[in-house]
């Protein structure tokens, strides 16, 4: 729809702009706008230190949103993110209680638990054909129940290992936080998978029309299943990083990531119906949301105001460019 309305103007623009998704451009324009507003508010807003700090905070959301994007590209959604994040963080910390082997295996074990949640989601969606929204809500509840039993029934270890702290807050490359490097690596891998592999093509294909993808001889169920497993794993990895950042795991640490991860993907121009979207857009969405949160906290906006502004901004931006076509 948007292509036809602005097509006339776009034809006269340079090629790289013409090829870009209007949604991604809008998102980047909003980032510039936010930076401008922020710099009016505080002089130090545009300093490299502050921006790098923002990028570090964004990378936790970025890792989680990467998995969410993969699932949304399929036309599904993963609402088990909150407790996948918390499970990843809590299980990684819990593993650390079991001696040196536990410490060494803490990070893989945390991710593994997230993958396990994702596999249950994947089986439900791909093989049992349960709507993803429902099965992921249910696994979210089960994961929450398991964690409540775990923390209440046994004495939990909730402090992060040194490796986790290093991943989240260390500097392997001077000046660049490790978390940013990790996000860049995961993002690069995602871009490669989406644009250069058959798996990526299939993901877009299923998002457009699963029947057609199935009829062209693809085991669509396996692809859906893998996507959910990856999403669960990345959520848990995000949780591991968060635990490293805060150097401990907490019960409701994932709650704050559900809406932002969906919003980042959708604001970045990925269609919630699946089949359309680029990772660059998700990067833009993640940065946009992190900056918005940051400005609100610099303005010392109370939690209530943040929630309101947040929801309003997301609805407003979606109304700008995320509308479904007026079919029929």
């Amino acid at each position, binding site marked *: 729809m948007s292509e036809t309305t602005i097509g006339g103007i776009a034809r006269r623009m340079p090629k790289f702009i013409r090829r870009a998704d209007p949604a991604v451009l809008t998102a980047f324009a909003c980032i510039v706008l936010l930076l401008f507003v922020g710099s009016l508010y505080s002089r130090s807003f545009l300093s490299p230190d502050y921006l790098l700090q923002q990028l570090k905070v964004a990378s936790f959301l970025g890792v989680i949103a990467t998995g969410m994007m993969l699932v949304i590209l399929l036309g599904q959604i993963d609402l088990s993110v909150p407790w996948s994040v918390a499970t990843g963080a809590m299980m990684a910390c819990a593993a650390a209680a079991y001696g040196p082997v536990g410490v060494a295996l803490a990070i893989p074990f945390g991710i593994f638990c997230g993958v396990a949640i994702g596999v249950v989601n994947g089986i439900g969606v791909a093989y049992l054909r349960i709507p993803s929204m429902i*099965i992921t809500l*249910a696994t979210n509840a*089960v994961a929450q129940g*398991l964690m409540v039993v775990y923390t209440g029934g046994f004495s939990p270890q909730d402090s992060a290992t040194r490796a986790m702290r290093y991943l989240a807050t260390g500097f392997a490359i001077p000046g660049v936080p490790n978390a940013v490097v990790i996000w860049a690596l995961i993002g690069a891998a995602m871009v490669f998978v989406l644009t250069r592999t058959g798996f990526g093509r299939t993901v877009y294909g299923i998002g457009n029309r699963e029947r057609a993808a199935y009829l062209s001889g693809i085991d669509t169920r396996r692809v859906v299943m893998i996507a959910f497993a990856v999403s669960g794993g990345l959520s848990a990895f995000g949780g591991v990083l968060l635990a490293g950042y805060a150097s401990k795991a907490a019960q409701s640490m994932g709650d704050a990531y559900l809406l932002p991860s969906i919003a980042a993907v959708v604001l970045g121009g990925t269609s919630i119906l699946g089949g359309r979207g680029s990772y660059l857009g998700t990067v833009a969405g993640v940065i946009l949301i992190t900056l918005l949160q940051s400005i609100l906290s610099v303005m010392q906006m*109370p939690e209530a105001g943040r*929630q309101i502004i947040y929801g*309003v901004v997301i609805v407003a931006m979606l109304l700008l460019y995320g509308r479904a076509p007026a079919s*029929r």
Partner: protein
Amino acid sequence: MKDWRYWLAEQRGTLLAFGIFIVMFTIYTSNHPAGFTANVVQTASNKGVLLAFVAMAQTLVVITAGIDLSVGMIFLLTNCLASWLVIGTGIETAFGVVAVLGTGLLCGAINGAIVIYGRLQPIVATIATGAVYFGIALLLRPFPGGSVNEDLADALTGRLFGVVPASLVVLLAVVLVVWVPFSRSVLGRAAYAAGSSEIAAYMSGVPIRRGKFAAYALAGLLAAIGGLFLTFFTYTGEAAYASGNAYTLFSIAAVVLGGVSLFGGKGSALGAIFGALAFRTIGDLLFVFDFDPLWQPLFQGIILLIAVSLGAFALFRVRNRLEWFL
């Protein structure tokens, strides 16, 4: 024609939910130390109607093949609002009740307008509006507190003639005043039609937009009735994020247990009500069997997982593999 067969096929989900509820409640009361007394029934129904109202709200939206993930937050928001407004003399209290219900209706209407006229996906739109409603609730009650007209609260949560729980009577009244007229009206039919096949309904000239809008708006109203009742039970308002989320989640569970199809166009609010009552009773079973309360969230989660997996039985009826991908 054997009319009763069609009736049975249509009501199968509702009857099943009713059956589950009866079985669960029988197990519950027979193991309860106090047994089947008016007190136990009153407590159980007071807890159950909260979820029943929210589940009824969810049903309306689910029938149109949508979903309302903000329903728990509307419930919280109206709870917080009621803890400010539903107080004072009779007239003040009445105005307060009207204002609370109007707020719920408005919240639902906003959801409907964004989803239908803004053409956004219900999931994303209602998660975002849910954040807004929660934010407003937090503004109203940064800390738990407030009060409510206790005479009214006690009257509506007590017993009629010493036997019948008043909250159940209110639930019945709401079904008769809101659900029955809606489901029989043109708008209600339009909501069902939009849920089963929007394009076909549109082609046949059914007012699907108005029908869907009415469904969303009434969902807000029903959630507000739930919020009002929460205030009557607790005498306070509290903006607890986890509680709002839990109600959204449980409302979906209740809808599924109640035989309402998540793909839209099928099911009734009565089914969802029994689904909600059954779900609550299942949660309470842990207590009469002396389980650690710690296990309750896990238990409820597993019940939810099983309930939603039941939908997979439809796969056994699939004859052509392409029917997987409807």
